[in-house]
């Protein structure tokens, strides 16, 4: 065997051995991932915000969110974190005839989440049931997701939350990014987001939460009926938060 043949055969043998070794590893990874996702597979949680029923000056959903998720509030807009907030839309000069409007803003739980795409450590990711959430153990605080989010829905914990209203849910240490996660911990127990429950308790019933994959759910019927809009659909982010009366 000359040198050329020796190298050829040798490299083929090494490549073959490497392939044979890596194949079982790869296949075991995928089967594990599939098994892990199976529990949440099939659902697609979404929210519909009926602005015609949302009351001006009411803060029930925001308060409930802070109470449930220990969202940091320092009373200083530089450090405050908002998972759900109200913004006032001022009509543009050209759009005469429109009135000022209060709009609830929150994480849009995109089906194509830009925040998860840019996360360098896969701390932000989309669960099989469509919920976008942050693994705070992994987050390195680079704030890429905040830049990527076109809805300004992501916030950074510049400081630790001084209060801890809900001891059963962890708070966040400083240096991690976060946003609404549809109260995934409550959904896993068969519940629904705290803001939705609070809105219903207040009597407004402006927040409707449900499974978009289930054609019989209230949210699916309302979306199918037409008139429900999503914010900046042209971005292609496929938000799962719909608005009525926007």
């Amino acid at each position, binding site marked *: 065997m000359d040198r050329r043949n020796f190298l050829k055969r040798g490299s083929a043998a090494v490549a073959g051995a490497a392939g044979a070794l890596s194949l079982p590893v790869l296949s075991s990874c995928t089967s594990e991932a599939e098994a*892990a*996702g199976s*529990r*949440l597979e099939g659902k697609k949680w979404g929210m519909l915000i009926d602005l015609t029923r949302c009351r001006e000056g009411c803060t029930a959903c925001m308060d409930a969110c802070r109470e449930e998720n220990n969202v940091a509030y320092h009373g200083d807009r530089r450090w405050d974190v908002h998972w759900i907030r109200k913004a006032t839309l001022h009509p543009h000069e050209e759009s005469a005839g429109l009135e000022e409007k209060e709009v609830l803003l929150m994480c849009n739980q995109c089906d194509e989440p830009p925040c998860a795409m840019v996360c360098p450590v896969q701390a932000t*990711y989309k*669960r099989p*049931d469509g919920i976008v*959430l942050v*693994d*705070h*153990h992994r987050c390195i605080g680079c704030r890429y997701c905040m830049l990527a989010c076109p809805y300004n829905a992501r916030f950074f914990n510049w400081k*630790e939350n001084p209060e*801890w209203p809900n*001891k*059963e849910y*962890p*708070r*966040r*240490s400083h240096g991690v990014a976060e946003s609404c996660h549809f109260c*995934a911990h409550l*959904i*896993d127990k068969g519940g629904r987001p705290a803001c939705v429950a609070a809105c219903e308790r207040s009597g407004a019933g402006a927040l409707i939460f449900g499974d978009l994959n289930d054609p019989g759910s209230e949210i699916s019927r309302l979306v199918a009926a037409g008139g429900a809009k999503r914010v900046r659909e042209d971005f292609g982010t496929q938000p799962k938060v719909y608005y009525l009366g926007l």
Partner: protein
Amino acid sequence: MKRSTVLTEKNRGAWATVFTVIILLPVVFSILKPLWAAEPEVFLDPPDPRWESCFRPKEYMRFHHMDLLKEARSQVIRDGSGNGITLAGCGDCHRNREAFCDRCHEKASVSLDCFGCHYYLTPSELEELEGGGH
């Protein structure tokens, strides 16, 4: 050359005995130590009698609790399920965090990040609770 007067043909056996005794002294010492040593101090807070229903045997938990917690962590976050182990569940039996978690980790120079975000009764809160109970 002058011959050694300390180690000679005659006293070689005596020297060998002395050498063996010195070598074996620590072994004998450690075997006999329990005879006069005091009872070892209880290092960790004894858990609730319910400890028998711990997730795994005591010996396993001692060395692998961090693996179980990490496994639970990723399962809860990624899949919404978990393996049944939660920090709150630990706290049901091991009430005193300072005596249970902190003391051992301090000794082993392991810094714990858990309690910045996850709630576990602090000793002062525990005192308050138990004070209120009596």
